[in-house]
């Protein structure tokens, strides 16, 4: 077994223990969806599309609120070995977990008798896919103009070689001692989702949570920047240019 962390506290991919992978966030990547988002943690890549609020069959509707429908799906080519297409037990569970995490931030009561559909596709998986999925979904929801209390940000923390590390990746996920995805609601400083695999002591858990919240702040910044970029980029200058091109 190789060491996941060396004596200097450097991990396999050259990161420090409290360092995150490279983040890429984008808004409005799908033209056909009402809102869309893309989120990347190093080699983990997620794309989310939001449709609605739109009508729902009568037997599924709720009189007082909109029904949030989340589908998390892993592309067959996303993993090292090809995964058979179609929903699995795991993907169904994660869909439900993400739905719970997002429900608490959306004003569902504003659109009674409708549904909001969130489709998340993992196009490349390298640990913490549910975190990337939630981050992409939050961007997509804001892009779709759905009323929300705030964006949610998510990051995973874990214990590798007895040390607490931020943003677990690849081998660390497979061979590490613990893995804990956290979804954070920055405005209220609340946690909307917390799961854990493995064993940690109380002190380690507290340390891990602290680290996770620090990571979530970084993710939140990336998400807001992505949304701002989409809507601020459209300058009038580009309209002038477009008109000029069309005339000549």
């Amino acid at each position, binding site marked *: 077994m190789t060491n996941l962390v060396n004596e200097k506290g450097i991990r396999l991919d050259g990161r420090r223990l409290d360092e995150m992978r490279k983040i890429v966030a984008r808004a409005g990547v799908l033209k056909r969806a009402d809102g869309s988002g893309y989120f990347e943690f190093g080699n983990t890549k997620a794309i989310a599309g939001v449709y609605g609020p739109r*009508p729902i069959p009568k037997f599924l509707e709720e009189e007082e609120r909109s029904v949030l429908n989340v589908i998390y799906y892993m592309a067959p080519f996303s993993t090292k070995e090809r995964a058979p297409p179609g929903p699995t037990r795991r993907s169904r569970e994660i869909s439900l977990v993400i739905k719970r995490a997002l429900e608490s931030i959306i004003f569902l009561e504003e659109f009674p008798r409708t549904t909001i559909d969130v489709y998340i596709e993992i196009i490349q998986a390298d640990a913490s896919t549910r975190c990337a999925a939630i981050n992409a979904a939050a961007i997509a929801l804001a892009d779709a103009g759905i009323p929300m209390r705030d964006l949610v940000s998510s990051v995973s923390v874990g214990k590798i070689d007895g040390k607490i590390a931020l943003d677990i990746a690849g081998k660390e996920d497979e061979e590490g001692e613990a893995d804990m995805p956290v979804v954070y609601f920055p405005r209220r400083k609340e946690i909307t989702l917390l799961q854990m695999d493995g064993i940690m002591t109380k002190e380690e858990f507290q340390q891990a949570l602290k680290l996770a919240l620090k990571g979530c702040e970084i993710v939140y910044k990336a998400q807001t920047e992505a949304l701002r970029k989409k809507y601020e980029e459209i300058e009038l200058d580009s*309209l002038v240019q477009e008109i000029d091109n069309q*005339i000549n």
Partner: protein
Amino acid sequence: MEKNENSKKEVENDYEKALERAKARRLVLPGEELGYGIAGSGTYIEKGIVVSKILGLADERNGTKFVIPLSGVYNPKRGDGVIGIIKDIVSSKWLVDINSPYLATLSLSDALNEFIDLTKEDLTKYYDINDVIFTKVLNVSRNKLVTLTMKEKRCRKLYGGTIIKVTPSKVPRIIGRKGSMVELIKEKTGCQIVVGQNGLIWIKGENKRLATEAILKIENYAHKVGLTDKIKEFLDAMLAKAEKRKEERLKEEEQGLDIDITIEMEEEKQI
């Protein structure tokens, strides 16, 4: 003359004020704090502070803070003039698609003034499925049952034409201040245009392609300053271009005719 100049100045002042207002607006994201005040549309209050709940442009009027959305579906409001498409007819009412998540109902008494004997008459005589109407929202109940009326000003059936879809939040920009933008497009292209608050726009006329292009441009650049002038420039240039092309085509046709005639003459000579 003086009066004219004065009114001109007023218009300019108005324009500058609008410019300043538009520049003061800033892009906000859900969860962004707007400070203390009264919570208007697109906001909520948490611990006494007004917070934005949608992505949009923050603005303030008389202490009320509100956010103008930049995306999202149409949420029907009482008194909105909308364009609807008849989707179904049930016993004594029509079901109308108004580009929102909710189907609206237009009941018989809100649609017609005369008495109708339902046992003898067919409702499709008045509005058939897939007919397009301009109608007003009479009421929206708490659980979003939308009723429409045809008994108000400007409500009518729209014959022919094309419907285009834009983001509902950008409709005010397409209409412009006191209808300036839509009047400009109507004037330049000579099209009939009806704009619904729900983001459906009905266009009829020869130049509807150009009108559509202009409207989609406005939609893409809706929250930018000085748009009216740019659109005017665009329409003028495109119209001039079309005119030029037309002239060229006419010329070509004339030349073509000349050639035909000469050939005929030659043929005659041969005979």
